């Protein structure tokens, strides 16, 4: 095995995690917006817009977790214990929002499960943001294990990134609804998208200023000696995307969603620039945590074959449920035959 697969696996995992953030991002965002919509019919439409795809979107999270376990096992074995409680809250949140898709249509008392759809989405999102913040702050390592405490994740920075991700997913969710709905619900989604856009801009600014202050490595990377001007496009493009988002929200259908995806992508790129090549910041790099070349190679063979197939039927599935969502598609429709 002379070929170094670590960069390829880094790219695949980065892609998988990004797919998760985008896809579950917008459907968690719909969950966050859910209780604020005006009528029961509109809330049903919101849920129906993601009912056929939420399960698929969440599968990318499993790929991210298991992919990290398989390709960079030591990173998995250190990072996950460091965020023991946030991971617990994320999983419980995902459970309560996931079952709500069916339960809220089956229960006589829908209020509880509608509530669990919102609270579960909110808690899962916040927990993911906290995981991100804890990760960026750095994870203390001794030997081959996490050496911090249970509550190390409770820091102002991690709580800020938790709130920031709520704003971010809320924006994605609102833009998704602008794309998938029409009439009053779409108008409402446009207003929500503008509010969340302001929130996201504020959080992006705060995190961008705070992060270099946290870590010398990050400060050095962005503002270092040779002044790497090739990094300038990152903030410039991000700012341009915010302008495009802001101007497109009032009239356009697809552009706001694309612009918000772009903003997430730029944030993700920025994170990558800050951290690379560390995978357990700021102790272990990708190569130090990588699985044996035989393990990486064995999994690579199937992945290169399967990932394009997965993407093909993802596209097909989204194509089947394309267009504006109607009241007759979703779990409620399934139930209509029962009642």
């Amino acid at each position, binding site marked *: 095995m002379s070929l170094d697969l670590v960069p390829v696996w880094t790219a695949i995992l980065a892609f998988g995690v990004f797919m998760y953030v985008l896809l579950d991002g917008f459907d968690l965002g719909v969950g966050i917006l859910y209780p604020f919509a005006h009528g029961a019919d509109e809330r049903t439409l919101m849920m129906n817009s993601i009912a056929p795809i939420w399960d*698929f979107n969440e599968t990318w999270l499993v790929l991210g977790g298991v992919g990290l376990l398989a390709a960079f096992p030591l990173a998995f074995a250190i990072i996950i214990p460091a965020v023991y409680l946030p991971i617990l809250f994320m999983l419980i949140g995902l*459970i309560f929002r996931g*079952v709500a898709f069916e339960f809220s249509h089956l229960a006589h008392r829908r209020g509880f499960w509608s509530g669990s759809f919102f609270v579960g989405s909110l808690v899962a999102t916040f927990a993911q943001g906290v995981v991100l913040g804890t990760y960026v702050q750095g994870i203390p390592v001794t030997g081959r294990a996490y050496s*911090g405490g249970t509550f190390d994740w409770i820091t102002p920075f991690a709580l800020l990134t938790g709130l920031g991700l709520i704003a971010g997913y809320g924006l994605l969710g609102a833009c998704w609804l602008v794309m998938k709905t029409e009439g009053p619900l779409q108008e409402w989604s446009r207003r929500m998208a503008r509010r969340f856009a302001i929130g996201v801009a504020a959080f992006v600014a705060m995190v961008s200023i705070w992060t270099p202050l946290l870590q010398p490595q990050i400060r050095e990377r962005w503002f270092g000696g040779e002044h790497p001007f090739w990094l300038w496009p990152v903030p410039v493009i991000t700012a341009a995307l915010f302008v495009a988002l802001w101007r497109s929200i009032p009239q356009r259908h697809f552009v706001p969603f694309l612009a918000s995806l772009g903003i997430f992508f730029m944030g993700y790129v920025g994170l990558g620039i800050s951290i690379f090549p560390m995978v357990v910041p700021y102790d272990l790099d990708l190569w130090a945590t990588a699985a044996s070349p035989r393990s990486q190679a*064995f999994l690579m063979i199937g992945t290169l074959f399967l990932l394009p197939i997965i993407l093909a039927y993802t596209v097909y599935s989204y194509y089947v449920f394309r267009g504006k969502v109607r009241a007759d598609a979703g779990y409620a429709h399934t139930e209509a035959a029962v009642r």
Partner: protein
Amino acid sequence: MEALLLSRLQFAWVVALHILLPAFTVGLAAYIAVLEGVFFFTRRPVFMRLSRYWLRIFAVSFGMGVVSGIVMPFQFGTNWSRFSDITADVTGPLMAYEVLMAFFLEAGFLGILLFGRERVPAGVHFAAAIMVAAGTLLSTFWILSANSWMHTPAGYAIVDGRFVPADWLAVIFNPSFPYRLVHTTTAFFITTAFAVIGVAAHHLRRGNHVEESLVMQKMGFGLLALLVPLQVFIGDQHGLNTLEHQPAKIAAIEANWETQARMPLLLFAWPDEDAERNAFEIGIPAAGSLILKHHVDGVVPGLKQFKREDRPPVAIPFFSFRLMVGIGLAMLALTLGGLWFWYRDGLAAARRFQALCVASIPLGFVAVIAGWVTTEVGRQPWAVYGLLRTRDAVTPSLQAHDVTISILVYIAAYILIFGSGIYFIARLSRTGFGPPQPEAQPFPRSARPMSGATRAT
């Protein structure tokens, strides 16, 4: 130490409840694919009604399976990070293949299966049903391969205290995997068949949906006529394989302390692990040797042959194994009963037998859990049999209070989620056909014997 015990209890709790869902949905996905297929080729409306009916139940149980399944891989990180660090070069790719081959396939086509009937051609909808069923089976394949490797590790080398792969085919097809795969998958199908039969029995006893219910029971008993006897044979083979590779587990299952020929088959005993004997026992002389060695004079290894610190707990595998086998025998009797009433054309009228069928809905689930407890407790004290102890697999940074918080949260959440889910599934199975089949109106069916309004008896 306390974090270790709590972590083990937590893992047992989240996996035991999770396994209830695949135990049902693996078989149900295949059943729905068959119903869709029969309808696709014969256009007989009863199969469409059945498929729609079971799809509603499938949607609820599959959703619960997905969310409780997402919890599982993270357990390896949160509570078993040493296990992940030491074994993931070998087990990680197996689990990753499960995600890539199975989870995406299921999830990608589930939306089309549940909501796409009016949006895609009939052939595509049928294909989606097959894809979802194939996904559940592929998932079973990969996760049981990883699990079997923990029981009978093969194809590895140990470098710097970590397992690294040496031969992938040997890893995947490790010695216990073929037996465990066939035994478990068969158990899942049997579990689903008894659930389908029991639900049909409920309708038959009320004289509702008789046509649908008879189709369900005939399909169910037809499958069981094949699978239940087969499972007895597979179980025996799996036991012989375990005797070869994990003799201490067999000794615990049989509560057999001495290495002996003419080992009795204990029907009941009270194992005393401190005194290294059974306080009380009733057995059939030499039958144990006959089963395990296929010869009355066969010598079967006893627990005393293993060092105390290498022995599994005895009482738990002993009783859970007997529970599993006992249920298996009850299932055999029920299957024979069903075939008898079917042969006599009296399924719909056999009220007492149908009451038994309703009561036996949980049997498969209990047997699956009992079998799982037998094999996993029997693997102790090892995480990777003979090589990595469970106590060396737990996350080093974990404190008892961490796991106390998480286990309490998981217990409360799962009681609420599974309690509600079982309630909703039970209600769907009672009402799922709806008022006398509005969707059936396009098909004139003069041959239909009963309607919801008239009673069968």
